[in-house]
């Protein structure tokens, strides 16, 4: 065997090993431990000792076992074949692990992340003698019917093409171009695969300001608290408030090109649910299966805790790779609290001095580093791409003042706080409108006004103001009862109730209601505001609130989300006309 022995185990404490007699290990080097070759990573070096975190169960590892070095940092393989695959936290394809070890995951398994046998139809874009620079696209492969995979020159490499493969079907390991780099005479062979260390952000040409919303199809999000492409958002919520449901809904219906879904320390059945459901769902914008744009990373709660820590980085590195090809990628991390807890557990095992609630002092730094990998970029190949991060946070006891929520809040610009009260009433998505916010509003208002309707910002402001007013009125109601309020104020409460039922609440399981286009959202909001403005006028003229409430058309408004499909906006015209007529009639009686 020509393996390099980097040291030997001197202590085992859960997933953390101490190693002695270290010869030449590198920081963050990937290592293999013991005769079972468990995958691990060097996380601390001190003299001839090292600390290693192991990504598998360490049962049976004893002091004296060998540690084998790999000479490389923990990296992911990037190339055609990622799409539609489900990986574990260190990019081992779970389907293949299943073939190797059956229903229960064994130890020391290794498997290539990308299928090496599969042949791809390759179309070259460079010829012999061309000068290429880093990130330039040298050829394409149709990875799935909707995703064209663009093979790029790896970052940090530029030179002249001395050989280029012709169009044809190749496996990923076949050399498709040979490069003579500018700085060294040593030639470089390029295949369709490149590897990148997961803890280092991939470079791009330039960061661009955010200006385009990520339309999720969820009304409360798009209309009230919008997210921009390249933006970051946190979804905190206690258990049972619908974090996973919200993440799933966004993963299904948002208008990103590619979804990377990281199940980090969550339930096994949830990943199975995604695996069952996504292939059958049809993406409204392309008519293709949703699985053709989705990559799953599953490190469930009972899988080794250190791989949970790595899964977040594996996911974001894959996302950056597709961004560099010029795609808009949305990454769901469910849940970042489990990742933070993994950090805490490993830090505790290393006997580091804890900061708040046992979390290591470097927690905020790690959170910041992660969220800063989002952004809207101009890539080296001259295209535009983005990575948007949607991170769920699971605060203990649903208390938002705990360290993970608080630190996350500092580094994201959008916050969708899930409300226990709403969830208890089964009002989903349970995004509370009082403590949620979005800082992207001004960035994306021009897009809405131009593409959807000029009144958007104004309408949105008006309904939010009503919601604020309602909170104050509800406080009065709680003290003196609703009858004490004048009709004009009771009408505010009435309109807000309609808005909550008809607009904010959205049924993820209804074929029509599960997502709404930007246009549908705008029209629905318009109709509700029409009820508010005209109704308010009528009340001033003396119409009683009971009369307004009894209008037949109101029931139709409440059910419009379920009855009017996204592709038939014309029906809103009819509904609006009907509402106007009913109000006219009421007004005429009192006029």
């Amino acid at each position, binding site marked *: 065997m020509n393996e390099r022995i980097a040291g030997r185990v001197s202590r085992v404490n859960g997933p953390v090993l101490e190693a002695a007699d270290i010869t030449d290990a590198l920081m963050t080097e990937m290592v293999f431990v013991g005769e079972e070759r468990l995958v691990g990573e060097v996380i601390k070096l001190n003299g001839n000792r090292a600390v290693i975190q192991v990504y598998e169960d360490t049962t049976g590892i004893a002091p004296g076992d060998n540690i084998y070095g790999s000479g490389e940092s923990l990296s992911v393989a990037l190339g055609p074949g990622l799409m539609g695959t489900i990986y574990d936290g260190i990019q081992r394809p779970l389907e293949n692990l299943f073939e190797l070890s059956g229903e229960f995951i064994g130890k020391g398994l290794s498997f290539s992340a990308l299928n090496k046998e599969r042949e791809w139809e390759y179309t070259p874009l460079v010829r012999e003698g061309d000068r290429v620079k880093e990130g330039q696209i040298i050829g394409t492969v149709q990875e799935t019917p909707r995703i064209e995979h663009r093979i790029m020159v790896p970052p940090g490499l530029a030179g002249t093409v001395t050989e280029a493969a012709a169009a044809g079907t190749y496996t990923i390991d076949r050399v498709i171009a040979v490069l003579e780099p500018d700085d060294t005479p040593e030639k470089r062979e390029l295949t369709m695969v490149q590897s990148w260390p997961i803890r280092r952000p991939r470079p791009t040409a330039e960061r661009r300001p955010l200006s385009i919303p990520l339309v999720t199809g969820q009304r409360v999000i798009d209309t009230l608290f919008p997210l921009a492409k390249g933006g970051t958002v946190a979804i905190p919520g206690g258990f049972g408030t619908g974090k996973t449901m919200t993440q799933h809904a966004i993963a299904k219906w948002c208008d990103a090109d590619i979804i990377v879904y990281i199940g980090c320390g969550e339930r096994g059945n949830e990943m199975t649910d995604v695996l069952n459901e996504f292939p059958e769902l049809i993406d409204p914008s392309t008519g293709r299966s949703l699985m053709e744009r989705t990559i799953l990373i599953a490190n*469930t709660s009972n899988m080794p805790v250190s791989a949970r820590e790595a899964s977040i980085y594996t996911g974001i590195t894959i996302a950056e790779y597709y961004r560099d090809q010029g795609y808009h990628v949305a990454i769901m991390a469910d849940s970042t609290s489990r990742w933070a807890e993994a950090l805490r557990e490993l830090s505790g095992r290393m006997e580091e001095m804890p900061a708040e609630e046992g979390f290591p002092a470097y927690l905020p730094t790690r959170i910041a580093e992660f969220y800063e990998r989002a952004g809207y970029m101009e890539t080296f190949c001259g295209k535009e791409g983005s990575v948007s991060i949607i991170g769920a946070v699971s605060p203990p006891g649903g208390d938002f003042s705990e360290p993970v929520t608080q630190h996350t809040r500092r580094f994201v610009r959008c916050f969708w706080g899930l409300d226990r009260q709403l969830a208890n009433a089964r009002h989903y998505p349970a995004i509370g409108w009082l403590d949620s916010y979005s800082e992207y509003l001004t960035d994306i208002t021009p897009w809405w006004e131009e593409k959807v309707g000029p009144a958007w910002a104004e309408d949105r402001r008006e309904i939010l103001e009503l919601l604020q007013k309602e909170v104050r009125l509800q406080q009065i109601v709680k003290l003196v009862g609703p009858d004490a309020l004048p009709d004009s104020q009771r009408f505010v409460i009435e309109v807000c109730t309609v808005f909550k039922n008809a607009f904010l609440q959205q049924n993820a399981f209804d074929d029509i209601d599960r997502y709404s286009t930007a246009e549908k959202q705008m029209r629905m909001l318009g109709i509700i505001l029409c009820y508010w403005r005209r109704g308010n006028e009528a009340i001033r003229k003396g119409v009683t609130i009971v009369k307004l409430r009894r209008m037949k058309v109101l029931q139709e408004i409440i059910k419009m989300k379920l009855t009017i499909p996204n592709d038939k906006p014309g029906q809103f015209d009819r509904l609006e006309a009907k509402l106007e007529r009913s109000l006219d009639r009421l007004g005429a009686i009192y006029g």
Partner: protein
Amino acid sequence: MADQSELKKKLLSSREYVGVDQIEGPLVFIKNTHPVGYRELVECRDRQGNLRLGTVMDTSDDVAVVQVFSGTSGLNMPETRVSFKGEPQTLGVSKKMLGRVFNGLGQPRDGGAAPRAVKQVDVNGRPVNPVAREYPRDFIQTGISVIDGMNTLIRGQKLPIFSGNGLPHNELAAQITRQAKVRGQETDFAVVFAAMGVKHDVARYFIDSFESSGVLEKVALFLSLADDPSIERIITPRSALTLAEHLAFDEGMHVLVVMTDMANYCESLREISTLRGEIPSRKGYPGYLYSDLAELYERSGMLKGFKGSITQLPILTMPNDDISHPIPDLSGYITEGQIVFERDMHSRGLYPPVAGLPSLSRLMKDGIGEGMTREDHPHLASQLFAAYSYVKDVRNLASVIGEEELTPLDHQYLDFGEYFEKKFVNQRTNEDRSIEQTLDLGWEALSLLPAEELHRVTEEEIETYYGTVAAKTPEGGI
């Protein structure tokens, strides 16, 4: 070469060390051993030669730390003999274990001989590959309205009961065990019962209840009672789940695992962690409590291509009825929903005292509706939740301004709330309602509200089911 290492392993495992260097609580420290593996099984003999099992918790060049499951009382430093078995702790499992009573380590405590094992399995289990899982969607009818109607139990689900001391969680768990069935299917079922630190009479209650319903020979009990060493509780659920996995995935049985009380399990975990001087997170519990609980709870579900299933019904008493306490809180993040008990309902004489709003079944959405229960079920459940949630608001309001000041509509809601709690939720401990009875009761309650208030059901459903009892005439108008 393989033979050589086998031989070496055998030699090392027969090696016995006499004398230990430190004993602290359930932990024993031994220096100058051969290199021992993490989580290796340890046999420890006191001076009378009695065997105690343990496991390696921490191993290094200088010292091995062993956690002894049956406690360390009676061990002394010079005469204690220790041998390391070279492999993790295993449990011999077989179908013959049904109908028997064991201690937490799987040794018989009913006086009988140990049943012959079909195979030896590592009690720590291995994580299930998510691609091998079958998504659970078979509706289990428990005959309890508030569960079937609003928090449906699905075969392969892990659904804990969050209770408090003095609340009837044992009665409910026993009732579910007796009444649970998948309709239209005769199935091979089994119950695995793990008791951690519960009192003798609680264990007795369950045994009697299994006996009187004639299922005792289908039950395997793993008892680590309140007066057994607390450390044994760490291994009890693992033994129980190891047997459950064998019954479900080797024997093709549908297994219901009842684990009580998870709070005691977590206490034991905290005890060990503190002794080892680990850095605590919340309330002194170790930082890995979440991962540790997940190792237990995730050992449930169904696998593709296998007939059997494991459904978990863990019971945990919330310290001081506080749902934000780390134990219920972390459990809630792992399990697929929770049945929460409310002391207030219990004092009002309602059984089961299931709090309507915080209870939840996450797998319900895919197991109910047309072809599974009844087509109106999803909307009905959602409507009941919404209406009941409003009832809570109205009650709060009434407690401030008095009932007289409420609007006529709010009065209707109060009537609905009353009916819902007394007729729908409340039932006898031996009452077994069919799902149709449950849903009809739900509609009876909703019929006390005006039809315009029912936003979450469709027109057709109102047409078919609404008004099954004479609804009071709304006194609307001003």
